[in-house]
């Protein structure tokens, strides 16, 4: 056999094994690296060969992701020249996006929430969208709901295009009101009345919360009612700001409830059902501020509950019928391969040239950033199904609504404001101290 091997120039089997042992892992490693570097393009075989392929990243998961995928499918069917592929990046999506931008291979579209957009814009990680507002899209920005547009605008340019927005009302549990000796058909119309009514609903025994009345959800949520403007001349201004102080003092008035027990109670109930529920949904809270999706949650978790929803009550001298506006914004990263086609998809998603936009918005329980979508029969039908939904739309269209302004240090502001509210509610600081500390922190925060 050895002689035959010599004649036929077969290598030694041991050496073959050795070479294979070295070459196979090397080949595999090379394949992985090539794939990672994009030499092997996943999904390139799908759709029309001549179509432009767009990569769309979203942080949504579960049924929300299914909704987005349906959107992409509908778009692909009506736009044969463009094919959108959806990729879910649920954990640390922002970091993955930035890494992709830095590597020169970003997606074409990314759905983002407000606070980060300013940071991205300041760092030239995303492109302004005003350049696309021409031709058939000439009114695409000017027609937007002003509060929705404000959440995507940084230094006068629109960087995030609002596709689906949130509006909030005060929900009240009629059963708990009745049990507390309140008239369930006479919900509070002022914040002072709300504070007085909700106080009768708390049940704390042995240091453990059994039932809550109302609890301030966040600073931004009530900022519209207090007519707070957190920015002046492009900088955060929290001190020497009477409205901000009035709101923080209102929040401080709830520090009489044990912060740790309340927080533990509400967070535990929040995490039931994968984080899609809260204490109100399961009949353990008398009043809460929530969006239209609460209706679905209540029907699912406590269908026997009798409830109502009214515009967020105003303080004396404040704004009535206002809401905080936030939501989902599409951004186009710097270096995106097909920005023009990406814009076509973004505009379509928000409702421009899209007769089925209402289907997307009503499934998610959202307000339309493009006002004309509200006139679509599907959206009107959804509003009429539960009349209180009209109230959400009405609040959403109030020009005095509050939107967190974009700033290069918006993410830091968001975190620091959360800490300030926490400090006030846990009696670590009073309202003045918390705002002063917040101002000091945010002044030091570099962009």
């Amino acid at each position: 056999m050895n002689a035959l091997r010599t004649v036929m120039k077969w290598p030694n089997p041991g050496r073959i094994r050795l070479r294979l042992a070295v070459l196979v892992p090397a080949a595999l490693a090379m394949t992985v690296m090539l794939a990672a570097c994009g030499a092997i393009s996943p999904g390139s075989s799908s759709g029309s060969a001549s179509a432009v392929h767009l990569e769309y990243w979203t942080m949504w998961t579960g049924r929300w992701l299914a909704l987005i995928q349906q959107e992409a499918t509908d778009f692909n069917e009506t736009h044969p020249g463009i094919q959108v592929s959806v990729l879910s990046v649920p954990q640390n999506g922002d970091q993955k996006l930035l890494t992709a931008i830095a590597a020169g291979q970003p997606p074409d579209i990314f759905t983002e929430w407000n606070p980060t957009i300013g940071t991205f814009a300041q760092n030239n990680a995303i492109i302004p969208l005003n350049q696309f507002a021409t031709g058939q899209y000439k009114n695409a920005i000017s027609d937007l709901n002003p509060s929705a547009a404000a959440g995507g605008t940084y230094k006068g340019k629109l960087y995030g295009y609002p596709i689906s927005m949130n509006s909030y009302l005060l929900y009240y549990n009629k059963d708990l009101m009745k049990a507390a000796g309140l008239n369930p058909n006479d919900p509070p119309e002022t914040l002072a009345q709300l504070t007085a009514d909700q106080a009768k609903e708390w049940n704390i025994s042995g240091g453990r919360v059994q039932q809550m009345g109302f609890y301030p959800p966040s600073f931004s949520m009530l900022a519209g009612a207090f007519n707070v403007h957190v920015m002046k001349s492009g900088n955060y201004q929290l001190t020497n700001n009477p409205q901000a102080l009035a709101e923080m003092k209102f929040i401080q008035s709830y520090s009489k409830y044990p912060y740790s027990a309340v927080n533990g109670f509400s967070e535990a109930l929040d995490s039931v059902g994968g984080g899609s529920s809260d204490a109100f949904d399961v009949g353990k809270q008398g009043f809460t501020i929530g969006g239209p999706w609460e209706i679905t949650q209540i029907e699912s978790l406590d269908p026997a509950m009798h409830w109502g929803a009214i515009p967020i009550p105003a303080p004396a001298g404040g704004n009535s019928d206002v809401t905080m506006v936030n939501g989902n914004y599409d951004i186009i990263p710097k270096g995106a391969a097909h920005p023009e086609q990406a814009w076509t998809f973004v505009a379509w998603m928000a409702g421009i040239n899209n007769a089925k936009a209402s289907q997307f918005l009503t499934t998610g329980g959202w307000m339309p950033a493009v006002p004309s979508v509200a006139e679509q029969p599907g959206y009107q039908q959804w509003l009429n199904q539960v009349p209180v939904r009209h109230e959400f739309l009405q609040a959403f269209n109030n020009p005095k609504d509050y939107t967190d302004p974009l700033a290069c240090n918006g993410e830091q502001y968001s975190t620091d404001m959360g800490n300030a509210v926490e400090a006030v509610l846990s009696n670590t600081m009073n309202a003045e101290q918390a705002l002063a500390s917040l101002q000091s922190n945010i002044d030091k925060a570099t962009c």
Partner: protein
Amino acid sequence: MSVSIAAKGEKEPGRPAAPGLPGRMSRLERRNLRNGLLFISPWIVGFLAFTAYPFIASLFFSFTKYNIVSSPSLIGLSNYINLFHDPLFWKSIYNTFYYTVIEVPLSTVVAIAIALLLNLKIRGQAIYRTIFYLPSIVPAVASSVLWVWLFDPSFGVINDVLAQLGIKGPGWLFSTLWSKPTLILMGLWGIGGPIVIYLAGLQGIPNELYEAAAVDGASAWRRIRRITIPLLSPVILFNVILGVISSFQYFTQAYVMTSGGPDNSTEFYSLYLYDQAFEYLHMGYASAMAWILFVIILVITLVLFKLSKRWVFYG
């Protein structure tokens, strides 16, 4: 008669090469070396790309303003200077030292105590050892979520049990006073690894020493103090150093369970570093923090080694 005198450092001709010198290797040795390097090349490439390069690059970035997307710009020592004026930086240092100073000694004492029990010759010992080690193999994130529920002030089992005993349970993770002690208590859940190492150390102590001490009338406590602890001291030093390093890098549980709250009472150093790097994109600032952490850990480790000469007994 000819005498060959090799100059200092030269090798005499004809003498076999010293092992390990590539220039004098045989073909077989060179081939083996090449194959060996090829086999470990994935690790070498990984080490260079994912450890050595970032390590060196972070030193450079610590002197820059850098946000991943734009090019870094040199700003000298500004990041380091700003850090010393950042109250949350000091708070994170305080939180981390608080955790380390209590958790490391506590877990050392508890782990040694459990290892001593698991070293007894009793029936079913293998089962007990397995039970105590089991929590260590549960992923940190999964056990963290579990503990959030156990420690919940309103619905948690722990406060339920305390209430049965007539004790009003604290707010645990939701209380600024209790949040760090809660995480320290929870840290005891994962001491299975050190227990196994202590157990191995205990089994390496010769039985004759205990027998001789017993003959001399030494009590059990005296045997532990005079025999077990001194002979176990190298293992204790090893575990203490590892414990200090991991405490200073404490991240996962705080990230999952508290996100630094309430009121920044669990904003540990690594968590704040992460926030600066990946939430606010202050990569230069975060790099400076990483290097300060490196220096802190290095100094403490050197101090521990220095002090170890006084109490560690290497036989």
